[in-house]
């Protein structure tokens, strides 16, 4: 193994980058992120958490941010649409919140909002837990997979993970037919050992992470046969090139340092790789103005910044906060969640 030039890890620049997105004005050409602002917020807050910066946010600003997240919560208890919206796009002062059509929770943004609240040290006491779980039930399809909202959304492994995470966070699995969910996951295992977004679809590290994490969160990893388990490990380990890629014969990409790395951690196989190039690849995707991008020499974005940091943390690089991979948050946030669970009993 040759040695590689040391690339500086620009923590301070990343902190500034994430704070610019959080508190500044995002340029108008990114208006196509309008409906997923809460996901964007989650990437920023979660990234700052990995950088151990949450304690440096003034309490007043934390409270404001918590309020903003709660303004996304759907308070309609008549229909099965509870959860969090992705953005304030449909919010208006003239119309009471439950009179606006399409004010529906979205499973991915509900997941992001719950984690954001946890990271900001909210105790989730204002979360409509029962209704969210009741609504979750309406989103599971016949094949065991989940759709994202009561109408108008697609269904795949991403939303299985969101459903499992929401159930785990709220400590209530009554909204999921877990056997059906497991069946869907097992059916999505491909001939090459990896897992696709659904049956027949190509193996992909994003969907593989979602699948394995859902099994782990629901205490069902043992449902994998030992052959499936070994094949998954092999397939995931082979994703390592100069960095991690997401599918065979695809280029390495910063975000897979988490998706692939996290899946390997859950399967207790991360220790089998030993590569100086791996952190180096991620560091090479740093933008000179802060943030990480998908590839070397391309533009940074909050999503790749978060996953770059999360990936480096899995590599135990740079003194970052340790991850709790299956929930896609830091260990300290998970520890707080466990305390909340005991309080809810």
């Amino acid at each position, binding site marked *: 193994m040759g040695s590689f030039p040391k690339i500086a890890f620009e923590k301070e620049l990343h902190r500034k980058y994430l704070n610019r997105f959080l508190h500044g004005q995002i340029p108008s050409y990114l208006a196509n992120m309008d409906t997923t602002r809460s996901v964007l917020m989650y990437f920023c807050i979660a990234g700052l958490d990995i950088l151990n910066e949450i304690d440096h946010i003034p309490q007043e600003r934390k409270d404001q941010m918590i309020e903003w997240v709660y303004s996304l919560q759907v308070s309609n208890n008549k229909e099965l649409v509870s959860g969090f919206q992705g953005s304030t796009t449909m919010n208006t002062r003239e119309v009471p919140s439950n009179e606006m059509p399409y004010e529906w929770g979205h499973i991915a943004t509900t997941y992001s909002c719950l984690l954001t609240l946890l990271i900001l040290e909210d105790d989730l006491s204002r979360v409509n837990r029962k209704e969210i779980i009741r609504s979750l039930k309406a989103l599971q399809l016949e094949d065991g997979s989940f759709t994202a909202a009561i109408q108008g959304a697609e269904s795949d492994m991403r939303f299985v993970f969101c459903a499992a995470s929401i159930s785990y966070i709220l400590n209530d699995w009554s909204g999921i037919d877990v056997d059906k969910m497991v069946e869907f996951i097992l059916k999505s295992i491909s001939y090459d050992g990896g897992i696709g977004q659904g049956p027949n679809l190509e193996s*992909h590290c994003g969907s593989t992470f979602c699948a394995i994490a859902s099994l782990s969160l629901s205490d069902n990893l043992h449902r994998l046969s030992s052959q499936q388990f070994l094949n998954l490990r092999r397939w995931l380990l082979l994703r390592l090139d100069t960095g991690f890629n997401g599918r065979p014969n695809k280029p390495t990409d910063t975000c897979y340092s988490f998706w692939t790395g996290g899946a390997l951690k859950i399967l207790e196989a991360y220790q089998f790789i030993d590569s100086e190039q791996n952190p180096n690849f991620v560091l090479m995707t740093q933008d000179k103005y802060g943030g990480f991008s998908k590839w070397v020499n391309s533009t940074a974005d909050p999503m790749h910044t978060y996953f770059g940091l999360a990936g480096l943390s899995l590599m135990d690089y740079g003194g970052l906060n340790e991850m709790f991979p299956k929930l896609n948050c830091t260990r300290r946030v998970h520890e707080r969640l466990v305390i909340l669970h005991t309080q809810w009993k």
Partner: protein
Amino acid sequence: MSESTESSSDEGDSQRVLYKNRPEWQDITPLKQDDGDYPVVAIDYTLEFQDCFDYFRAIVHKKEYSERALELTQTAASYNAANFTVWQYRREILKALDKDLHEELKYIEKVILKQTKNYQVWHHRKVLVEWLKDPSKEKYFTEKALSKDAKNYHAWQHRQWVIKTFDLFDGELDYVEQLLKDDVKNNSAWNQRYFVVNNTTGFTEDVLSREIQFTLEKILELQDNESAWNYLRGLLLHDKTGLSRNKTVTEFCESLYKDGSRSPFLLALIVDMCSERAAEDGAGDGNNLYTVARAMELCNSLATNYDTIRAKYWEYTAETIEKQSKGEVVDEASSSTN
């Protein structure tokens, strides 16, 4: 991240008249967005964006299903095609006005081809095809998308759905073969090949030997091609005799090895063949090539020469196989499973 919105004449652009200045919208009171007192991740919306969504909120609240509302959703989608509410509302209008859905297909085709990685626009198309029960344009359409990026997951997902739902498997193997001629490393095409065979003929003995032949030829074209080796393993799942007793495959591997190939994929397959035999009672027949000793040797050369970034994994694999051959319990994680 989704791609940024591109404007074009058919989707409207900066020359568009603001809704608040349009006579046909005078009866509507626009509804301002309430982003709270202290917004987070605020977007510096353009005037046009704000204007459009102010009227969008108002018309949605009125639940108006009209031509002007339909036009408005098109503008809204041009600013943010990832807004699934816009598409949901648009579909309801299309239904209510009994619009020509073939026209809508043409429109969404243009939108998708400009942002081929946007979930919402693909979903819109899927719903239209379901409503029309007409999949006739889908194969050609997905081929257009795949000609821009032959590994686009959305396009493959849509194509598989159409093929499966409407039984359009005919000709698909030829298409896959063409893509593999263009790029033998296209993993999506290999996956599609498996999908087609699995859902049509299945892996009968004849099909299996045909597919093995096909794959071995592709491996000869390019040995360091994980996709082809993975496909080969997928095929061997259907061989009742296991990984290591298909003569065509073992002879092929042995001849590659003799000719000096040390592709990690080749070595890994031989290791797995050895591992399979080691797990069998009595360790197989006398002239068995697939011994524990060979597995150890190959793991060692993978670890030290041919796949060094996974050295620890190959060392661990060697240990596991050795233990297995001695009948010891292996791997804390997998021993509890199965």
